[in-house]
C-alpha cells in the first residue's frame, strides 16, 4: 500500500477535489483505493463523492471509540463506506478497482462536532503517552491489512497542525503539496517541504517523496512569485512544477462530482503524480 497525502499550507486550493479525482483515476486503472478525510476541522470529502445517503461513523468516531478502555477495536465496516465504483466506469468496458471512503464523519451534523470535541479531550495526538499516535498508526495498519488497498489517499489538514503533521510526516510515503502563486502560500509551502524532506521516520519507512502541484495558475507570474516557485522546484529536484490550471471546466468537474468525466487537466496532472501506474484503463 502506498500512502499519499494531499496537503496545502493554505486552504481553498482545490485539494479535496484533487483527492477525489485521484481516487477515480487510480480506480479506473484497476487499483484498490481507500480515501480518508483527515481534515477534521473542515471535512468535506464526502461531498466530493456525492455520498447521498445519511451515514454515521468515519475517522473521528472510529478514533474516539479507540480512546476508551474497550479491549476490542471497533468494527471497521461501521466507519468505512464502500463506494459504488460501477458509477465511475459508466458504460466503459473496463474493470475498475474498488474505492472505500472513510469520511471524517457526518459533518456538519451537531453529533460530529461533539465527537470531535470529545476526541480532542480524550485522545490528544501529541500525547507523550503515545496513545494518540498509536491510534492513528493502528487505523493505518488496519486499513492496509483488512482492505488490502494499492493506495491510501489522505486529505490532510491545511496549515501547521499535529494531525496534518501526523498524516504527512508519519503515515505518508508521498505528499502531494499544493501551492498557489501567492507569497504566503509559497513561503509557507517552502518551509513545509523542507520539514517533510528532513522528517524523522518510523523504522522501515523511507524518505518522503514530495510532489509539488501548482494550483490556481494564471498565465504569467510576478518575478518574485517565479523566484519562489523556482525554489520549490529545485528543492524537489523536478524539472518543472505540475500545474493545475484555473479553468472553468475544472471547476465544473466539482459540480459533476463522481459521475462526470474526469477532466483532461486532471488526467494529465494525475499521470504526472502517479507516473508508474501506466495509462491503460483496467490494467493492474
Amino acid at each position, binding site marked *: 500500500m502506498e500512502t499519499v497525502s494531499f496537503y496545502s499550507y493554505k486552504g481553498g486550493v482545490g485539494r479535496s477535489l484533487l483527492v477525489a479525482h485521484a481516487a477515480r483515476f487510480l480506480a479506473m486503472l484497476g487499483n484498490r483505493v481507500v480515501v480518508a478525510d483527515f481534515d477534521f476541522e473542515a471535512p468535506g470529502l464526502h461531498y466530493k463523492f456525492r455520498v447521498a445517503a445519511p451515514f454515521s461513523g468515519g475517522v473521528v468516531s472510529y478514533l474516539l471509540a479507540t480512546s476508551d478502555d474497550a479491549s476490542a*477495536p471497533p468494527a471497521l465496516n461501521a466507519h468505512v463506506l464502500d463506494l459504488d465504483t460501477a458509477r465511475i466506469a459508466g458504460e466503459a468496458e473496463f474493470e475498475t478497482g474498488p474505492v472505500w471512503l472513510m469520511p471524517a464523519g457526518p459533518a456538519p451534523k451537531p453529533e460530529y462536532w461533539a465527537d470531535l470535541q470529545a476526541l480532542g479531550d480524550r485522545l490528544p495526538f*501529541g*500525547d507523550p503517552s503515545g496513545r494518540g499516535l*498509536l491510534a492513528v498508526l493502528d487505523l*493505518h*495498519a488496519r486499513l492496509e491489512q483488512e482492505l488490502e488497498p494499492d493506495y491510501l489517499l489522505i486529505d490532510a489538514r491545511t496549515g501547521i497542525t499535529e494531525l496534518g503533521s501526523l498524516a504527512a510526516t508519519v503515515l505518508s510515503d508521498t505528499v502531494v503539496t499544493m501551492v498557489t502563486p501567492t507569497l504566503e502560500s509559497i513561503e509557507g509551502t517552502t518551509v513545509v517541504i523542507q*520539514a517533510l524532506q528532513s522528517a524523522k521516520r*518510523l523504522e522501515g519507512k523511507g524518505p518522503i517523496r514530495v510532489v509539488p502541484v501548482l494550483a490556481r495558475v494564471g498565465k504569467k507570474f510576478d518575478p518574485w512569485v517565479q523566484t519562489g516557485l523556482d525554489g520549490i522546484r529545485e528543492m524537489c529536484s523536478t524539472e518543472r512544477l505540475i500545474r493545475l490550471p484555473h479553468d472553468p471546466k475544472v471547476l465544473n468537474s466539482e459540480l459533476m462530482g463522481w459521475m462526470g468525466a474526469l477532466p483532461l487537466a486532471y488526467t494529465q496532472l494525475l499521470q504526472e503524480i502517479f507516473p508508474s501506474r501506466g495509462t491503460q484503463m483496467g490494467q493492474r
Partner: protein
Amino acid sequence: MWTSDGLGSSVSRSLWLRYNSLGGNVADADTLNMLVTGAIWRAEQLQAQGIRANEAWAEVSSWEEQLACLFPQTDPEGRIARRGAVRAALKSGDPERAEALADRYLAEKGTSKEFKAGLREILDDATQALANHFPYAAKRYGVRAAQGFARQIKTSGAFGLAA
C-alpha cells in the same frame, strides 16, 4: 499541584498548606501519605466522571516519589511507594517518567529479585495493555518504538518546526 477548584480540593487543601509550610521540601511520611491518599481519591473521581485525570495521576506519582525518598526499598512502605510512583506515572500518560523512575529504583543497592521483577512487570503490563488495544500498530511498529516516536514528535512540534 493543588488548585482552588476541582474535585477533592477540600480534602487536600490543609495538607497542601502543611506541605508548603515546610518550604515545599520533603515532608514527613504522615503528611505525604495523606497527600497521596487525597491525590489518588481525586484522580479516581475524575476518571469515574470521564474527565481526563493525567495531571492528577502525575501528582500522585510525585508524592509517591517523595515517599520513596523517605523509605529504603527494603522497607515495605518504600516498595509500595516505588511501585506507586511508577504506576501513577504510567496512568498519567508519561511512560518516559515511569521508565526513568523504574530504572532508578532498579539500580538501587540491595534491590531484591522479587521487587525488580515486580517493577518490570508493571511496565510490561502497561505495554501489553497498549499492544492489546492497538494490535495492528503494535504488530507493525511495536508499542515502545511508537511511544518513543510520539515523544520526539511532541518535542519537535507539528512538522518538526518547533525543534
